[in-house]
């Protein structure tokens, strides 16, 4: 329990950075290509989680608890964001009976 885990020797920190980058890019791709508002929202969650992974990685490799505490704040803010965002999606659904973002063109943006 008290020994230093082996992963810091056998897996370089760059592997975690590349993994987080790939997950983040998949999230961006989801936001750009999907039209369903809920899937777009889940892609945003994916991006948040890739950043969380990066925070925990650097926190562990640099032996500093601040990064892991920051992950708590990100999780709390994500929970608040999901509550408000899903309420907005439900409201949109009540008005136009769909969650397709390409139909939300009232403001001619």
């Amino acid at each position: 329990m008290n020994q230093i885990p082996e992963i810091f020797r056998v897996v370089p920190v760059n592997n975690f950075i590349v993994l987080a980058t790939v997950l983040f890019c998949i999230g961006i791709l989801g936001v750009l290509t999907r039209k369903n508002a809920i899937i777009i929202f889940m892609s945003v969650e994916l991006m948040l989680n890739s950043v969380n992974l990066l925070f925990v990685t650097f926190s562990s490799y640099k032996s500093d608890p601040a990064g892991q505490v920051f992950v708590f704040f990100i999780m709390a803010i994500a929970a608040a964001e999901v509550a408000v965002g899903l309420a907005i999606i439900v409201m949109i659904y009540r008005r136009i009976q769909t969650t397709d973002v390409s139909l939300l063109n009232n403001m001619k943006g």
Partner: protein
Amino acid sequence: MVQNLFYFFSFLAVLSAIMVIISKNPIHSVLYLILTFFTLSGHYILLNAQFISIVNLIVYAGAIMVLFLFTIMFLNLKDDEFVGSRIWYNLSSVFIVLVLAGLLVSKFAFAPVTVADEASRDSQIGMVENLGQTLFSRFLVPFELVSVLFLSAMVGAVMLGRREKGEKNF
């Protein structure tokens, strides 16, 4: 052993993340996203961050994803099409994201990162005791601000979900 676990979790995470954005049924997307969160929790355990791992499972895979699942079943969504009329738009998005990923990976894959040496490493970093000490000393003010944020989010969600006057229920 640890190395193999890392590559296994990474492979599973990337695969399920791709499945999140390409599956047609939103419920399948939510289930694949939960699988992604499980693999990330595996990564956290490998990184000796046990408490974050459990919190990730409880908060993300437990609470937030159930909220998503509930909303999707509540709204009775139909499958939406992935390609179709927007094929050039989608192809150009894929191209842009590939360029971005190539740039970031080529920059980060061999970046020199200094890590703590063996002597100064503390194996108890990710334990609840250590994290609690940090949270309630260095990060006390942000912690209190997060509670205010939660209150405003709760009020906002209730206000948004309220039925307006004269509106039919669905």
